[in-house]
């Protein structure tokens, strides 16, 4: 008989919608309600094409093996590696990331999450300028100006506008869509732009110029050129005045600003603009990055609480080090320094550069991935875990860093263990291989002498 599970969290995008309803009949997912098309697809196809047991590559072919053998092989690869990399952590639970940090420290490798190729520039900009942040509820209850800059929620976060920012009736915005102004700044006429009141079609790759012009007008400098990045200067002046008329504004930004030329400088300048709007114009403005994966914010926060830095942390000298440009996953792979890699909760097969993938093909690669994804051709040890949020519980962080508990909807198949258990087993074996004390000889760095970077 059909059983309806309520308040199920959708483990896909940064919205982490927690009002999903999933219909289950004797451990089979039949349908969902309230979830968008992407969320529905994740639940619907979660039980298709799943490997029954771990697989190891033997002379070119992935052969199913027992759990014990797979754990031993994985631990042996990681324990002997000179420069292992632990990548991913964005589509798994926070508890797994905590064990992952201990595993990285035990193997003295480097840990990085998918933010390195997504919102790392936002985190770097926060480290230079700080940021005025808020939660999504504040946006629903107070915001009367929503700015989407360089992101397209109708495609990437379908329920974002209807659940949090534009259509809900908030405490102080009782008329919902009518009590809010929507502004979209995007070179393309996207579907989000169709719903906007004002669409600023900036010319590609010159958002930095536009933000600077906003700041110039606010700091009462005159704009000498008549068109800036494709927009007439007086149109920009009207926009700034329009922003000034509102009480509470929120800037959502995505890959359009972070992965453009200038990377973290675009966000640096956008945050300075937010501070100046708060200071000079008096409109309370806040900022929120549209995080992609459902737990990338959780990965950043957990790695930061455990090791002190949000991503790209290197333990090769025994203590945590953070220097994007030297220790992030892309730098290490691009220079070919990595000699063993563990990937969990991410799909580098589609998102890494060819140069990095060509190096990953040469090194032993452990992949914890339920489905058959592109990275399978390169991986040597493949675990098929229980999917977080569908087959096992865990905690995930929404795009505004609010932690919510993921629910278990169906039972996993017999050989599929949760990520936490897989990583703890590997950690136990790595400790044995390394010998309890192997990491206890201090490498000449005593506690408290701070001169070491």
């Amino acid at each position, binding site marked *: 008989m059909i059983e309806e599970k309520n308040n199920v969290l959708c483990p896909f995008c940064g919205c982490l919608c927690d009002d999903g309803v999933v219909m289950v009949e004797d451990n089979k997912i039949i349908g969902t309600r309230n979830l*968008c098309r992407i969320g529905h697809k994740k639940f619907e196809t979660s039980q298709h094409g799943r490997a029954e047991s771990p697989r190891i590559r033997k002379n070119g072919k992935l052969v199913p093996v027992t759990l014990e053998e797979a754990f031993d092989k994985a631990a042996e690869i990681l324990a002997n590696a000179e420069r292992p990399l632990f990548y991913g952590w964005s589509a798994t639970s926070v508890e797994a990331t905590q064990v992952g940090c201990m595993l990285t420290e035990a193997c003295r490798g480097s840990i990085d999450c998918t933010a390195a190729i997504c919102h790392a520039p936002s985190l770097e900009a926060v480290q230079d300028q700080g940021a005025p942040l808020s939660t999504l509820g504040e946006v629903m209850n107070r915001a009367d100006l929503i700015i989407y800059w360089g992101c397209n929620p109708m495609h990437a976060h379908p329920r974002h506008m209807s659940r949090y920012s534009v259509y809900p009736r908030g405490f102080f915005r009782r008329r919902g869509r009518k009590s809010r102004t929507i502004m979209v700044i995007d070179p393309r006429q996207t579907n*989000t732009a169709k719903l906007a009141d004002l669409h600023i079609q900036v010319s590609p790759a010159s958002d930095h110029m536009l933000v600077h012009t906003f700041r110039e007008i606010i700091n009462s400098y005159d704009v000498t050129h008549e068109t800036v990045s494709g927009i007439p200067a007086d149109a920009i002046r009207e926009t700034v005045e329009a922003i000034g008329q509102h009480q509470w504004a929120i800037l959502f930004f995505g890959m359009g600003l972070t992965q453009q030329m200038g990377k973290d400088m675009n966000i640096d300048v956008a945050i300075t603009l937010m501070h100046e709007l708060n200071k000079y114009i008096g409109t309370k403005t806040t900022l929120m990055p549209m995080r992609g994966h459902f737990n990338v914010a959780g990965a950043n926060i957990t790695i930061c609480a455990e090791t002190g830095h949000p991503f790209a942390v290197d333990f090769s000298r025994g203590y945590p080090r953070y220097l994007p440009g030297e220790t992030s996953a892309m730098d290490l792979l691009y220079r070919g320094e990595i000699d063993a890699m563990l990937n969990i909760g991410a799909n580098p097969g589609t998102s890494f550069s060819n140069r990095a993938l060509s190096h990953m093909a040469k090194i032993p690669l452990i992949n914890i991935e339920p489905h058959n994804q592109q990275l399978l051709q390169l991986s040597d040890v493949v675990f098929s875990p229980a999917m977080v949020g569908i087959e096992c519980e865990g905690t995930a962080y929404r795009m505004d860093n609010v932690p919510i508990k993921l629910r278990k909807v169906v039972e996993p198949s017999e050989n599929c263990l949760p990520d936490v258990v897989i990583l703890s087993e590997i950690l136990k074996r790595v400790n044995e291989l390394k010998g309890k004390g192997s990491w206890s000889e201090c490498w000449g760095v005593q506690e408290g002498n701070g001169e070491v970077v």
Partner: protein
Amino acid sequence: MEKLYNLVTREERCVGCSNCVVVCPVNAYNDPAVASGKGPEQLDKVIMCVENGVVKILNMELCNGCGTCVMECPFDAIGLEV
């Protein structure tokens, strides 16, 4: 009195963003959860909801044909047909 119009959905275009569900004044009036963006709880008092990722009409008789949902759907996956 027989209705002069009919709500039509084109499921292949729908993304399941539930803009139409939330913006519809009838849904918002009948179910406070929908008024604040969440999924409907009383399915009998709501005109449409998102099921299996796409929009699905539940109670056609509640609709008064104001067309707000048609305006707010960027993929025009929902329409009014006379």
